[in-house]
């Protein structure tokens, strides 16, 4: 099987981008990715568009066709398809595009993700986000995604004797890193007590435990075309791309405070890449909720994850740099785009172009994108040769 590389990346700023529509965001990111790759639209074989809920956020479906049209490439007849897997849409689109290129069906593909979330009031946005849960058995009864995260947190504190500080620290880390990333939604540094004492969203979680509503788009160009890889200044190899799923509803899971799918997709990705955790220089995980960050790290590292919190190992200049981009929490959370921004951050790090937040000597990065709370899990490992 042939190797697949990322040869171009492009992203908009993330944030409350009142002046930009979904189509403008998507085409800006796509164009930047093509420019970064140094290729023309004619050289693209397919377009994969990731989006979670444009139908509800802006009354627009058929997103991939729209992006293609608005980017001015419809005349070329390039196939365009939307991939949706909750907030894991970006990772899932990358996975599907990777499989298509790996199989030889396509040589060069653009994968873009976009979400326009701030055109609706926040209470409506929260209902839309709840669409990633089970409508019949969860949201119908008033459950929101934040309340699911809160139940998981309560259970985890009770079962595993985890302290509030063990997961409240993750937003602190993300904000610190986001302050060094120019495209971040938030650039302010926060403290542990800010997280714990902020307004409650669903107890024990506060507004600082949860990722914001953001607008934004991110896109990458992947290829297996040898000529393009050779001409690329800094190609980054996709060493593994795996997906796994768990029960959609929390009540169907044997243990609600564990993410089995994460464990599975990460293990398979490590196996696929021939690497072990010792070879990974940095991690981008899905920090939509602080408690979710802790459980993802526990699924990857087991009990060590908490010790790593206590030893401050997750900062960019420490032993296990985590969410050096600023994560969903502080870099921003435009649902369908985040999985692709994770790939972009990893690419920037592996190219050695991350400026003051650069992870020194970074060779391999593991990124984990998640739909729901542990429902859909996508792991990608990127590396330099």
């Amino acid at each position: 099987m042939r190797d697949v590389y990322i040869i171009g990346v492009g992203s908009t700023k993330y944030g409350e981008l009142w002046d930009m529509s979904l189509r403008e965001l998507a085409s800006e990111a796509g164009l930047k990715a093509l420019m970064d790759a140094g290729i023309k639209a004619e050289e693209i074989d397919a377009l994969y568009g990731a989006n979670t809920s444009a139908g509800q956020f802006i009354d627009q479906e058929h997103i991939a066709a729209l992006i293609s049209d608005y980017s001015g490439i419809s005349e070329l007849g390039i196939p365009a398809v939307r991939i949706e897997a909750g907030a894991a849409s970006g990772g899932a689109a990358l996975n599907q595009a990777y499989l298509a290129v790996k199989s030889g069906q396509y040589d060069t593909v653009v994968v873009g993700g976009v979400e326009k979330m701030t055109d609706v009031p926040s209470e409506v946005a929260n209902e839309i986000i709840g669409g990633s849960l089970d409508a019949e058995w969860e949201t119908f009864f008033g459950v929101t995604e934040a309340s699911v995260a809160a139940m998981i947190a309560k259970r985890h504190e009770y079962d595993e004797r985890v302290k509030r500080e063990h997961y409240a620290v993750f937003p602190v880390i993300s904000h610190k890193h986001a302050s060094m990333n120019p495209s971040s939604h938030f650039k302010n540094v926060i403290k542990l007590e800010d997280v714990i004492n902020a307004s409650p969203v669903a107890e024990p979680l506060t507004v600082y435990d949860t990722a914001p509503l953001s607008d934004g788009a991110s896109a990458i160009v992947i290829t297996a075309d040898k000529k393009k890889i050779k001409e690329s200044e800094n190609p980054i190899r996709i060493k593994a791309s795996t997906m796994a799923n768990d029960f959609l509803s929390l009540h169907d899971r044997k243990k609600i405070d564990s993410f089995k799918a994460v464990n599975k997709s990460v293990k398979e990705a490590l196996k696929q890449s021939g690497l072990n955790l010792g070879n990974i220089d940095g991690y981008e995980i899905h920090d939509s909720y602080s408690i979710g960050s802790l459980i993802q790290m526990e699924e990857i590292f087991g009990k060590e994850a908490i010790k790593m919190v206590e030893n401050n190992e997750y900062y960019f200049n420490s032993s296990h740099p985590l969410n050096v981009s600023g994560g969903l929490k502080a870099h921003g959370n435009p649902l369908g785009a985040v999985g692709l921004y994770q790939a972009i951050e990893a690419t920037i790090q592996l190219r050695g172009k991350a400026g003051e937040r650069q992870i020194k000597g970074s060779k391999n990065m593991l990124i984990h994108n998640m739909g729901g709370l542990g429902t859909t899990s996508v792991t990608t490992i990127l590396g330099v040769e």
Partner: protein
Amino acid sequence: MSSIVSYGSYVPRYRIRAEEIARVWGEDPENIKGGLMIYSKSVPGPDEDVLTISAEAGKNAIKRTDVSKKTIGAIFVGSESHPYAVKPTASILVEALGLPNDIHSADYEFACKAGTAAIQNVMGLVDSGMIENGMAIGADTSQGAPGDALEYSASAGGTAFIIGKKGIAEINKTYSFTTDTPDFWRREGEKYPSHGGRFTGEPAYFKHVLTGAKRMMEMQGTKPEDYDYAVFHQPNGKFPTRAAKMLGFKDEQVKDGLLTPYIGNTYSSSMIIGLSAILDKAEPGDRILAVAFGSGAGSDAFDITVNDSIKSYKRDRAPGVMEQINRPIWIDYANYVKYRGKIIMRGE
């Protein structure tokens, strides 16, 4: 340019505290007090509306001046809660205030800056020589849906100005900035307004208020330190405080005009009641920057200099703004909803 000949305000005596509203809706009052800087708000009594509030403010303005009512050739009333959808508030006020019937009159609406739009229109008539003096009023009994964040701020009050050639404070310049920005609206027939949440901040309030203030200072060649007072539209206490800081004004320049923390947002009277409170204590030579904001959206900025005539001006003939603020009758949420007509009565 025209000047302020006289002014007067009216604040209903009924008040409700943020704690009382938060108690009913199960919210933490500290978030409202600390986050929005709103401690209490005024509530119109059962017999009060924009007409009665305007009449009280107008009477206070008339009382303070010896200028004859016969010289008032225009009355414009800005509000987003006129008692009638069709039938002017202004025409009733002509009779209520005993103004001559040979008068230009109209009601205005531009969310929270309808009162300043009224001032500008009177200025135009005065400056063109069409009238000698004119009255401009901004008043509201603003609406907030039960449980909505607006319920903490939407309050009642009114301010009237008599504008003419010779007065107590020169309006050196006025400037307006307008864009199509849907941050806050109420459709015909709807009881309560809708708002765009966080969209009401940066792209609406701050963009327009800051642009209004900056362009005014550019045109006048002034800096924040050239002003003794600054007053901005105040939907809550936090926004104008932040806007003042962003523009480079100090607390002592803005504190006298910042009233929303105590009486809530009086909408069309919001900025001008702050200006009224400043004029209550202003001295000759004091310079004031005043910027109103109206959702939808636009800002009206005024550069004002108080002159020597304020010394002989009879401010004491009518109660000042602080005097009215400091005579509250505190009510609970039950009386609040009764007074505001939020209880469904038999036959409704």
